[in-house]
């Protein structure tokens, strides 16, 4: 598939990076602007928290789609966007949590801990957030070098994290309308299926070489 150029000159790549950076900032900008302008609906706080959360999930899935997209299109430079996308996903998770912490729990840590202990969907969300922290910390070149092959193994965590995030979304739906969580679950399943199938083929190939 030659939808995307296989190579990108450095200046074009820099341009793409700036564009992606600004695009990733856009939802947060619109959410905050909407809050200030009073255009987030009748319950703006809930709307803000939910939108931050949903964008975190979207960016997580987009990050997960980078490698399959690179493999399918042969556009090797796509991988250069992956760290930024992943860190933006983490940023939106932090915004989601901060808004919840401040406005839902009045910035009282005790209330958050009680919520985590009592409510499975909060626990699942908290687990996803905590698991993302080591991935964000080790996203630098230095850590990649230091961890070597273990870096890849560590960053496989992003799959269970995405599963937790989708579950978190599923569990807070009151009734009936599961269409959006189901959509994200579907996308995640496709991405996960692709990786598993490719992984299996890779192992088979390696086994054949060794035989």
């Amino acid at each position, binding site marked *: 598939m030659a939808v995307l150029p296989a190579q990108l000159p450095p200046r074009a790549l820099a341009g793409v990076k700036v564009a992606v950076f600004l695009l990733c900032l856009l939802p947060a900008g619109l959410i905050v602007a909407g809050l*200030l302008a009073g255009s987030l609906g*009748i*319950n703006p*706080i809930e709307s803000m928290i939910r939108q931050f959360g949903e964008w975190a999930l979207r960016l997580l899935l987009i990050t997960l789609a980078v490698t399959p997209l690179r493999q399918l299109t042969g556009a090797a430079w796509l991988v250069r966007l992956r760290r930024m996308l992943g860190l933006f996903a983490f940023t939106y998770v932090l915004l989601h949590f901060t808004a919840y912490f401040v406005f*839902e729990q009045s910035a009282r840590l005790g209330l958050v801990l009680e919520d985590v202990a009592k409510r*499975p969907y909060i626990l699942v969300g908290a687990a996803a957030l905590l698991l993302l922290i080591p991935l964000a910390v080790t996203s630098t070149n230095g850590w990649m070098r230091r961890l070597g092959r273990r870096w890849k193994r560590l960053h496989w965590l992003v799959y269970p994290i995405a599963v937790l995030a989708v579950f978190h979304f599923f569990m*807070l739906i009151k009734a*009936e*309308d599961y269409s959006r969580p189901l959509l994200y679950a579907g996308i995640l399943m496709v991405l996960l299926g692709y990786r598993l199938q490719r992984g299996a083929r890779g192992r088979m190939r390696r086994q054949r070489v060794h035989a």
Partner: protein
Amino acid sequence: MHVRIPRPWAIRESEVTEERIYRARRHFMKTSAVAALGAGLFPGLVAARAEQQLDALRPLEKSRFSTDEDPNTYEEITSYNNFYEYGTGKEDPARLAPKYLKPEPWSVEITGEAEVTGSFALEDLLKPHALEERIYRLRCVEAWSMVIPWVGIPLADVIKRFKPTSRAKYVKLTTLLDPEQMPKQDSGGIFGFLSTIDWPYTEGLRMDEAMNELSLLAVGLYGKEMPAQNGAPIRLVVPWKYGFKSVKSIVSIHFQETQPNTTWNDLAPNEYGFYANVNPEVDHPRWSQARERRIGELFKRDTLMFNGYGEQVASLYRGMDLSKHY
């Protein structure tokens, strides 16, 4: 010859907000919003407060059951609704209900364990009663709340007319079933297999709850006829219970000896009980009921036992384990 007979329950002209005040209010909202934006505040919230201050200009007869808290704005009350017959989104009812619901003509069936039964035109149902305004807190099971100036009649006064028999231990109230007027009753949606609500929407009260002085049959709010999205033309309001008990667009009132099945209780019995009294100490399995977001406020506030109506209703539940009868 066309003779216009004023419906006895129609809101009198004198009761509706004067155009001049209405416009002044709008103007004030706009200017204060702009001013607040400059100050870097939250104009949406500031505007809401400003409108309420002007509402105090309106002469309204207040019931002794009315709260003196600031009511939410008409816009808030009429554009943030749960009315699943029009979709699960909070904005769906405001968008669709006025288009589909035909609240006129309307009649209500009175059936079951009562001496007087039959089908009554809404006008006839309301005729003997005087409308009053009741400003009640409304607490949704989803942990948000509003203050709403309802217009209606005490449910007890209506019930007495039908002379329920001694076997009438419960009253069951049912919403209209008509997919032509309530489109989501028909469609399973894209994920129809998950559509589990068994229409029509049904709610119920114990007889003594129904006869409580707080229970209201509401036909309007803010001195205007009930907007479609709020359950036109007639709905229940039981302010000490979570909002879902206050069934909308009622077509049937049925007296019976056994506890009726109710929609949310059927759907998720571990999450929504028959009683559904507002209770900060009994959490919903998935979220806390200890606090709530009053629409228009930034931070959450504490939820009150029986939504602050304990004085009127606590005696109804004496001796009951409310964590079991949630």
